């Protein structure tokens, strides 16, 4: 039906159970941007030099580094990096005391 100033305005859809509309500016979805697409270099870890100190995990701005303890087993990499979000900033490489992380071309 024509609304004010002749603009056609739809009535809001009927709410299904467990659903409602809210009005005004609000963000209701927790989500990530695929920041991995920004990279021009990526971290490459030499697991054999890694002492699992955790510095890379501590200082990764995107919090995508997980350092696994030895107890996790032989076939678990000491340092796991979620490349979907890694921006290739290079902090992990810079803070590693054993220099076992190198930034290589993407």
């Amino acid at each position, binding site marked *: 039906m024509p609304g*004010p100033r002749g603009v056609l305005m739809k009535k809001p859809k009927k709410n299904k159970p467990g659903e409602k509309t*809210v*009005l*005004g*500016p*609000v*963000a*209701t979805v927790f989500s990530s941007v695929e920041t991995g697409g920004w990279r021009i270099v990526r971290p490459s870890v030499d697991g054999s030099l890694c002492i699992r100190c955790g510095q890379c995990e501590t200082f990764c701005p995107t919090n995508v580094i997980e350092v696994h303890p030895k107890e996790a087993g032989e076939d678990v990499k000491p340092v796991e990096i979620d490349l979907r979000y890694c921006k290739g900033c290079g902090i992990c490489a810079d803070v590693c005391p054993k220099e076992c992380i190198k930034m290589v071309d993407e």
Partner: protein
Amino acid sequence: MKNQTKKMLDGNGAATEALQLARVGVISAYPITPQSPIAEKLSELVASGELKARYIRVESEHTAMSAAIGAQLTGVRAATATSSVGLALMHEVLGVAAGCRVPIVMPIVNRALVSPWSLWCDHQDAMAERDSGWLQFYAESVQEVLDFILIAYKIAEHDDVLLPGMVCMDGFFLSHSTQPVLVPDQAAVDDFLPPYRCKNLYLDPKDPMFINNLISPDEFSEMRYQQKVAFDNAEKVIPAVQEEFYKRFGREYRVLDAHRCDDADVVLVTIGSMAGTAKHTANRMREEGKRVGVVRIVSFRPFPYRELGAVLKGKKAVGVLDRSAGLGAQGAPVWLETVSAVPGDKSNIYSYVAGLGGRDITEKTVQDIFGQLLRVGEDPSLAPGTVTPWIDTRENAMDIRRIRTNDTN
């Protein structure tokens, strides 16, 4: 009515009573003449324990409105009040309350904006906020200050509205004028105004959301439109709430108040306490056989254009008396809205500006206006020589600072 008690209150006192009856939980008011007694009295009520609330002794009006919004988002009614430049200082944040749909109700004690500096009554402060997205109501009497605040809460918090609202009272003329007021009992108000519940957007770690983040051009119009729909809905909600208030408390209000307009030749549109003087003057003139009428705008936002258009239809002449200048436009603010509301030929609607900066709007001012309207109502061609829009401004306006100088030019 049995659910009310008579008290002698001034406008500030009535506003304080209303806020207390509404059980506000957080107060953040900053003192400014002529509103300061509201900030003071609320502080006393909190200190004595009569009002269970947190009093944030804010360091500016900008903070006052910000803190009120923050508090109300947690689920309590937040109270603040202001005037003049205090309202101007809140300007940036008023839009946040409106856009985030936080239904704060705020008494405004109308006072001129600067410059020139003035302490006294003028509507420029509230008129400057007419696009803020806030509801606006104007009281004519101290009783109305109290009643309109209670009514405003119910309108503002209605699910179909969710808009903040200002209840305006003329500085000093109402804020400091003691009148007999019927104050509803707390139980009766609790029945009329249920406890505040968080609706729509709120801050609660048990139900997180991020409020007021950046919105793209793809969604901004739609959110602004939601506010417009709220104003459209308010047009229906306001009369309904006024009706309920009448049933409970016996005082009848409408979005505008038409006094002896049906058979009037000429009508004066008014707003605020000046309406009382205008009605009194109209009654006197009626005794002399002059067919004059007065309309008072009660709800300025949303503007009652349909109702006003109907009242003013077919009148020989209409005057609109604004208490603010609306500089740069063809006429003053209420005149612009009136002209827009009246269908057809609008050439007989005249803008008047009076009562600025605390100048009293007297019977004589109103009589003069009616006199002009009656003359041009009979013969519009007389308008150029008859109508003086700035009716109470002295003729020597350009000359009031004559000083000595050494220039020989």
